[in-house]
């Protein structure tokens, strides 16, 4: 019995991987935009770097919280993972600059939103770099 016509053509054509997705994802996580730079998307890499670092700098200037897990508060674990999404800047702030944020500062809540957003944006960049490397996105 023959296959119904169009069965083969309705499937999207599988694209070949552009680059090693693991390398692209790790680079994207370590430095914002580095994954896209590795994948030869220089302009977008620069834009993403500027946006993520701008969010981080504004957040730190407002004394926002750079989360660490707090015992008995499981949501801080999620927030920590979100902040760690920014890669090397998180560890540089934490261990080189001994940055923690200042809970009494006027801009603490806003700053925390900016810092957390920087980490979450970079996590999305990791996924984007992964997809581009696999050929699923342009």
């Amino acid at each position, binding site marked *: 019995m023959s296959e119904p016509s169009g069965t083969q053509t309705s499937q999207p054509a599988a694209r070949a991987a552009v680059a090693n997705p693991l390398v692209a994802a790790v680079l994207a996580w370590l430095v914002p935009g580095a994954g896209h730079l590795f994948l030869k998307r220089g302009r977008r890499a620069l834009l*993403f770097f500027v946006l993520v670092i701008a969010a981080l700098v504004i957040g730190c200037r*407002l004394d926002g919280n750079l989360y660490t897990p707090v015992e008995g508060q499981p949501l801080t674990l999620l927030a920590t993972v979100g902040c760690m999404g920014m890669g090397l800047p998180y560890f540089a702030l934490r261990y080189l600059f001994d940055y923690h944020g200042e809970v009494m500062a006027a801009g603490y809540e806003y700053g925390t939103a900016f810092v957390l957003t920087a980490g979450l944006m970079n996590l999305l960049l990791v996924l984007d770099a992964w997809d581009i490397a696999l050929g699923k996105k342009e």
Partner: protein
Amino acid sequence: MSHFLLMVVYALLVSLFFTALWRRERAEQVKLFLQLFLGMVVGGLAVAWLMYPFPSGPPSPIP
């Protein structure tokens, strides 16, 4: 910085980010940017306006 300015800066950063992430064509980028940016700013103002009649109360103690 004022609360409003911070909200606008936040909306600007996030809108630019998702525009660059999700769209490639210039016309589509402009459209999505305006949707996101105005949605956040106007939406924020609308929520603030709705909350205006409610009293804020004393600040909660810091644990």
